[in-house]
């Protein structure tokens, strides 16, 4: 602890003001260009989480002509032979950068258990608190000097399997910074600001810096005598929050800096604006961003009235995801950014009596896109009725291992639990044909 009287310069430094205290806009494009040119550049991962379990039959593995096919039509994409739903036209234009896995097969058909399995690679229960793959990858990919959180999650589901969204044995330091859980009604665009990021009215930057300095002094004393995991977690969280409050850092979350026509292209909802935020965060070096679609309400859990709901979800998905691809490409960031589209399971190819589709883990789809991915292809094949995998069956561990490999991270890299047990990032084999 520094016992000298507080002087202004020191205060500014304590609060991270000073050199970078002005607007950040001019340095951004230059930084992005530099990042794109650097061979050791940060790799980024964007996880598009489809909460509720998306219908593969109405999106990326259509069955036209079969009774299970439903009401949607298939369209050609920019990649010869690869066909998507008619409600994903913008994505179809990016098909050369998309690789669809159509032969994913898992064993968990319950939302909680499926969510845990897909996100950690392991079914729930058991002695190890497995981290979500997003937390583990954020830890691998984070540059040491990053001020922004290494993992930002936009509007994740709040009720399902909390453990599947957390850092498990890696510890709370690797937990995501969550945005967008506050309802934003009556606005033109969904609002994704981190709340309470600004100083309270009447508190100057100088005063805030003095508060933090006092806080650090108290904390140092307390933690020197008391070490307890929950105490460390509390302390680490506050440091993270204080870091975020630096003006040039918090500007990353200010979507109002984007022109309205750009915001509109992404779509006005939480998902679209979340994809825009993902682009802004990737530009600023954040290695992992997750954007959930369908986390509020039933989402992709379309037991009833599947086609109306999937149509609406597809439109949101198409606008957000396709615009994200375009804008990352324009900034030369798509090659360093790997995208995975996935939910907790697929849906029954057969249509139930309420025009719905039910949970179906036996044969379903996920999609890779962007950096490290050999696009323009589909891997694996399901039967004409969609009920089973006929070729190249893929396990969830293989999907997670492929994601690691596409990001340049060895999937067999091990983290050690507190019980000295080594745990691989992903138990599975990368699908070589999908890697570029």
């Amino acid at each position: 602890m520094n016992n000298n009287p507080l002087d202004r310069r020191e205060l500014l430094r304590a609060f991270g003001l000073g050199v970078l205290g002005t607007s950040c806009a001019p340095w951004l494009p230059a930084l992005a260009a530099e990042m794109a040119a650097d061979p050791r550049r940060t790799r980024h991962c964007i996880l598009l989480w489809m909460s509720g379990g998306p219908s593969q039959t109405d999106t990326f593995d259509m069955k036209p002509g079969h009774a299970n096919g439903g009401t949607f039509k298939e369209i050609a994409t920019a990649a010869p032979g690869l066909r998507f739903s008619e409600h994903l036209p913008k994505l179809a234009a990016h098909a050369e950068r998309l690789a669809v896995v159509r032969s994913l097969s898992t064993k968990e058909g319950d939302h909680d258990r499926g969510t845990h399995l897909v996100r950690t690679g392991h079914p729930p229960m058991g002695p190890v608190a497995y981290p979500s793959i997003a937390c583990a990858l954020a830890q691998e990919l984070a540059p040491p000097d990053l001020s922004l959180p290494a993992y930002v999650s936009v509007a994740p589901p709040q009720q399902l399997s909390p453990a599947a969204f957390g850092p498990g044995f890696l510890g709370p330091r690797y937990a995501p910074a969550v945005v967008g859980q506050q309802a934003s009604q009556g606005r033109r665009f969904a609002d994704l600001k981190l709340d309470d990021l600004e100083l309270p009215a009447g508190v100057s930057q100088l005063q805030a810096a003095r508060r933090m300095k006092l806080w650090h002094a108290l904390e140092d004393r307390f933690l020197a005598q008391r070490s307890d995991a929950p105490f460390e977690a509390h302390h680490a969280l506050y440091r993270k929050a204080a870091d975020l409050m630096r003006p040039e850092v918090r500007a990353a979350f200010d979507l109002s800096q984007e022109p309205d026509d750009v915001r509109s292209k992404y779509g006005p909802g939480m998902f679209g604006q979340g994809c825009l935020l993902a682009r802004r965060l990737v530009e600023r070096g954040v290695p992992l961003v997750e954007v959930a679609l369908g986390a509020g309400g039933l989402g992709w859990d379309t037991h009833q009235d599947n086609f109306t709901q999937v149509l609406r979800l597809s439109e949101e998905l198409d606008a957000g995801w396709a615009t994200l691809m375009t804008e990352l490409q324009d900034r030369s960031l798509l090659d360093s950014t790997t995208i995975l589209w996935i939910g907790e399971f697929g849906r029954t190819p057969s249509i139930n009596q309420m025009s719905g589709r039910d949970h179906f883990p036996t044969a379903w789809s996920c999609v890779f896109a962007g950096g490290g991915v050999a696009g323009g292809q589909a891997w694996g094949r399901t039967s004409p009725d969609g009920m089973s995998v006929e070729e190249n069956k893929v396990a969830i561990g293989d999907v997670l291992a492929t994601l690691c490999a596409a990001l340049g991270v060895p999937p067999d890299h091990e983290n050690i639990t507190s019980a000295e047990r080594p745990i691989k990032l992903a138990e599975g084999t990368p699908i070589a044909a999908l890697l570029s």
Partner: protein
Amino acid sequence: MSARVDELLLRQWQARPVTPAAIASDAEFLRRASLDLAGVVPRVSEVRSFLADDDPAKRRRLIDRLLGSSGYASHMATTWGNRILPQGAEPARAREAAALQKWLRLRFASNLRYDNLVGGLLLTGGGDELGPALYYRALDVAPEKIAASVAELFLGVKLHCAQCHDHPLADWSQRDFWGFAAFFSRVKGPDGMGMQAPYRLADLHAGDVKLPDSDEVVPPKYPRGAAAADSPSLTRRAQLVLWLTSRDNRFFSRAAVNWAWQHMFGRPLVASLEGLDQNEPAANEALLDELADDFVRSGFDLQALWRTLANTRAYQLSSRYEGDQPPPELFARMLPKPLTPEQLYDSFLVLAPRRADAPQAAGAAPSAEGDLDEDPVRLEFIRRMRPPAGEPTAYRAGTLQALMLMNGSASRSVTTPQTSGFLGALEAPFMTDDQRIEALLLATLARQPSDGERALFKRLLAESLDDAARRSALSDALWALLNSTEFAFNH
């Protein structure tokens, strides 16, 4: 009974062997017991008189005083309300939740027997008795949901798995589960969604549950017991309540005691009442049995149960421990618990009571049931701070919660000199800086400042040259204390 608890724990510590932590200081104990039993940090005056008191029985007296305070009833109502309602039920039905709070508060204040409390909840007819019907309503008055909840809360058995197939571990078959659910098959909520009408629950003369994917009707059957014949005088749920709350139902008393233990010690005495956890020290099972028997003998007297637990030596142990920490299931030291959102907010209010002249928050128009108007700022604070369900000792807040405590409206009103009664009092001209610093520490951390802390804050005040600067210096000191790790935990 407290001595008996300590005797059984001590035997375990000796067998291992582990050395228990030292006894917590008076200051630590006062703050701990106040938060656990009354839900708030102690006031400055309480800390001063407790520390000055040289009666050797002062801890026992403190426990008695806390159990008789109004804070006890509201804290228990909050804790219990959160426990029985599924997460997410509250914000949507704020008024009903407030009514349930009031209903519970009255019962905890009069120390209603626990069996009667549970019976009253499960047998509510709703209507004019606003509140407890929210329990049924939050579970959609669906027999299988009510059954799973009742089994978990009052029997300590997690049954949702048995809904679809036989319980993989405990010996509850799918048929057992639906036999249990059948007791709730004739409870019915009101037709239609009349939002304003009182929510009335009726017991019908017909209504059954069927095994999933079949037409087979499952009659009501007590878990591991006989089938229950329909009675002309008792509704099905009344029959269940009689079985559930009977003195011989060990599931009922064990689940209650295990929950009470968790409330005080941060983790349940027995992690799984279904006997699923092989690592469980068998001695904890024996201790749970004795506590449960004692609870039944006392006539399900909750205050007596709290008194037993709070007067154990185990509850007085410090959370500090030199060397490698002992396994938590041995309770050889106190586990720090993060303050709940309610404890945080209510402790803020102890520090900075709402000024009587403060403007009414928007949307708080007084209604006919004036006492059901919960502070909307408090409700919003709690909604946003509520951690996901899980272990009470894990700190699981996110950046948003930290930012809210640093910059949000609740901490703002406590630390703004114009609105904070506490900061106003510190400006009194007769106080010395030493006394001001002491009051800051007593109010937040319930202890005297250390030499280092005294020096830190003295320097801060010495640098502040005019009244305005001193005012903001005191505000900054309070802010730093309220956001400290030490404040955020009950340890």
